[in-house]
């Protein structure tokens, strides 16, 4: 199932990038798709974590939320860059609890934190995340754990 969808994805990708349908080129494309699939199989990189097929239906909901957050965070950072104050920023290092159970969930959370400007995940350990935040407000906001709850709700809830 996983492999079938992976090969289908590769085929779609190949066709979309090439846009040619002559038999010779299609054959070359098929060879490259199969080679890629074989190599990925040998490298053992198509599994539950690296190719989360079971979550794919939930990603649109998650990304629509994430884009909202990214835009908000961008506006905040832009204001700080362009502000006339001498020190518009107050950098913080905070540790927040890792509330997701699975590794995949924790990585999604850490990734979301890094993607929103103003916060960068520095370290992901067994039970906490170390985050560098551009300002105290952002850090406090993150410490409330709203984002973590939202992600758990949107990605992992049935």
């Amino acid at each position, binding site marked *: 199932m996983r492999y079938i969808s992976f090969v289908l994805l590769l085929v779609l*990708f190949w066709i*979309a*990038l090439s*846009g040619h349908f002559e038999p010779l080129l299609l054959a070359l494309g098929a060879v490259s798709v199969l080679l890629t699939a074989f190599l990925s199989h040998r490298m053992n990189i198509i599994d539950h974590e690296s190719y989360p097929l079971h979550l794919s239906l939930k990603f649109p909901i998650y990304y629509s939320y994430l884009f909202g957050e*990214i*835009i908000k965070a*961008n506006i905040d*950072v*832009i204001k700080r*860059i*362009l502000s006339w104050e001498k020190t518009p*920023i*107050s*950098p*913080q*290092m905070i540790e927040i609890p890792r509330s997701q159970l699975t590794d995949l969930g924790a990585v999604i959370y*850490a*990734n979301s934190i*890094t*993607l*929103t*400007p*103003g*916060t*960068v*995940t*520095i*370290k992901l350990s067994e039970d906490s995340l*170390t985050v*560098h935040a*551009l300002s*105290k407000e952002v850090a406090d906001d993150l410490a409330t754990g709203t984002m973590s709850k939202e992600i758990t709700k949107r990605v992992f809830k049935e």
Partner: protein
Amino acid sequence: MIIDILSSILLLVGAALGIVGGIGIHRFPDFYTRLHAIGITDTLSALMILLGLALQAGWSIAAFKLAMIFVFLFFTSPTASHALAYAAQHSGLKPKLDQK
């Protein structure tokens, strides 16, 4: 017509955000804070520029390629930022923190 105006606005705002990020990496005091400025150019600025171009391209292979460029940037930039921050911290580079 509306699409043209919209895509111009997106393009110009995106490019302007790029410059803002560029100012940011010179204005902020240390490496970790500069990462946040780079975050702007990697997310919103890239998104707006590529979206503006995609509006011009319409439904075509070009639009698909733009979408792929965005997806790649979107997946790789947080990985790069995180790896960079982790490596910097691991090697003992101390962030300048607010002393308040």
